[in-house]
């Protein structure tokens, strides 16, 4: 039996990698992938606690998160493609429409 805090450390490490990826990478695809990483970190936490507490709802919730992540990836990629067609760039620094 792997102790719960190992899962939590793994989850925290993955989450941090994801956050750093989102904040520092300039390629939209990589940012999307980093977001996936963060979701999976959350999944690990859910499943770790589900196993620890002997309650399946955490696992069910993780399945839902995976489903939502799949939908998010589909929509996200759609947006990226639409954006690429308009601006011909994947660099997030060149997409600054939110500027004042």
């Amino acid at each position, binding site marked *: 039996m792997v102790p719960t805090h190992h899962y939590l450390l793994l989850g925290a490490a993955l989450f941090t990698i994801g*956050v750093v990826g*989102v*904040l520092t990478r300039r390629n939209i695809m990589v940012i999307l992938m980093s977001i996936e990483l963060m979701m999976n970190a959350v999944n690990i936490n859910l499943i770790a606690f589900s196993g620890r507490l002997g309650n399946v709802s955490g*696992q069910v919730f993780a399945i839902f998160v995976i489903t939502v992540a799949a939908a998010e990836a589909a929509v996200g990629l759609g947006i990226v493609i639409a954006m690429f067609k308009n601006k011909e760039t994947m660099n997030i620094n060149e*997409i*600054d429409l*939110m*500027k004042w």
Partner: protein
Amino acid sequence: MNFLDLIWLIPLFPVAGFIINGLFGKRMPKTAVGTIAAGAVLISFIFAAGAVYQLSQLPEHERSHQVTVYEWINAGPAVTTGGQETRFVVDWAFLLDPLSSVMVLVVTGIGFLIHVYSTGYMWEEDGFYRFFAYLNLFMFSMLTLILGSNYLMMFIGWEGVGLCSYLLIGYYFHKKSAGDAAKKAFVVNRVGDWGLAIGILLIFATFGSLDYQTVEEVIRAGVASGQYVISQPIFIGIALALFIGACGKSAQIPLYVWLPDAMEGPTPVSALIHAATMVTAGVYMVARSNWIYQMAPEALAVVAIVGVLTALFAASIGLVQNDIKRVLAYSTVSQLGYMFLALGVGAFAAGVFHLMTHAFFKALLFLGSGSVIHALHHEQDMRKMGALKNKIPITFLTMAIGTLAIAGTPGLAGFFSKDEILWQAFSSEHGHPVLWLIAAIVAGMTSFYMFRLLFMTFYGESRVDHHTEQHIHESPRAMTVPLMVLAVGSVLAGYIGLPKWLGPNLFEHWLEPVFEPVQVAAVAEEAAHHSAALEIGMAAVSVGIAVIGFLIAYTTYAKKSDRAERVSAQFKGLYQALLNKWYVDELYDALWVHRAKDLGRGLWRFDGKIVDGLVNETAVGTIRTAVGSGWWDRWIVDGLVRFAGGFVKTASWPIRLSATGYTQNYALVMVFGVLVLVGYVLWGTL
């Protein structure tokens, strides 16, 4: 070395080959790629052979060895439909018993030969390493499928081989037809996999476990205590659901349509995946679940009828096809039909026996056709072949042996296995003379189309075009040696399963522990009461039918004759229907494919007309009502706002600098905010 405890390694060698070739193959020399791929399978074969040998040394009732690697899934409590408490627990475990030992030897042994052959056949292709990486991944999946000790591992392997099949059919992905064929195989298999998944879920819901041995014990105990009786609806349901899966993977009516198109892949792939191993997974699965099928005679009847109809249907299409690989593809579908016929009449051992002999001669025939195609620079149309007998003698001789074997020549492998099936179709308690009659007719058709293939390719006048004619060459040794080995196998493989009137059926005896009857039936030994004379007589009849098929093919295609044209002109309607595969693809297009497209188009129109229309109407209405309020807004409200805005704008220029428009800056601020909040909360607790 104790190979029995090392069976979990068998699937890992090919996966190592897959990783090495897949990651680094692009930069490695072709010789290294081929050696690694074929070597990995050879090591698997050695380990498999060692394990099977050690298994055969055990006493008969102990010949079932399970190795648990680790607990794979342990996902909490569940309740079966019978009200029993259980847990959803699945081990990553491997099971070697007589049935999986037959499969593992066939898969690794023939798989190795085909890997060797591929090094010769694929030498000049682009993506040589990609091909071998996929092929090794396939071996891993297939070995997981047959060695796994529970339905979920079988499912993993099942999906894995489906994926590899898709990847390898679409190997020439720049060709649209190959991409389409790959997609078709994948989609049609999804339909079957749906059935398999339902079956597996039902098994867990009913028996509370997915482990083969546990399920079998539960059923046997249930039968002994009277809890389960034969023909109970749940057994019929599970058996039929599993059979839908088998129909998809093993190309039975109505899901066989993908297999002929799968010939778009390279020929070694057709030999390995679409003839010798993957398509027999359905047969293996039904044989593995024999305790469920024994409880559902109605489902067995469905299996037998679907099998025999598929055999007839596919053989009829095979009669007139002109593409050398398509003839073999329909032949494969037809032979798979034979296997399901055997399973359906309760002769599980006969079905698995035919699976094994078929793997030899069909792999041989496919590799031989590959050698012909190689010699003719990728010409597959038999109308442009002929008279190749002396130009590629090794290919000719080995293919002739394969043809004789599949046609059921006495003394060769196909004769023993096919005859066993015919006999069981007639004599077993689930059998019926009509099943035997159709199967015997199919034997004649098999003989005709196979000799037609042989004669059109190797005899008669050369119809090869002039340019290619000068470059015809026998294939390299890497290709001819596997052909010769398989030819020897096609001759000898039958002798381990002799009919009763000739000697002991070692093969059936070996499989007996797996196919032990669930219920000791009172009529069990009825089959034995049929006289040996009857069995010999029926074998003679089927050989006679095959000889008729041979003679028709010989006089039509080996001699100079216009009979082929004459007959096809006389029965034009039938000929066209056969040539166009009974228009089944067109029917499926009309029934499903176009309906799905119509649905998509309809939804698109709904979106365009109704949804967008509503939005547009609303917008127009809004614009009209907005004119009035616009005036008010522009002068009064905006005036106020602009005044306020101008004031704020002037006053706020230092803060404006922080709004850069870069999303990541905003995200960074958010993260800091979260950290501050978390810090604040933790501050309170610490």
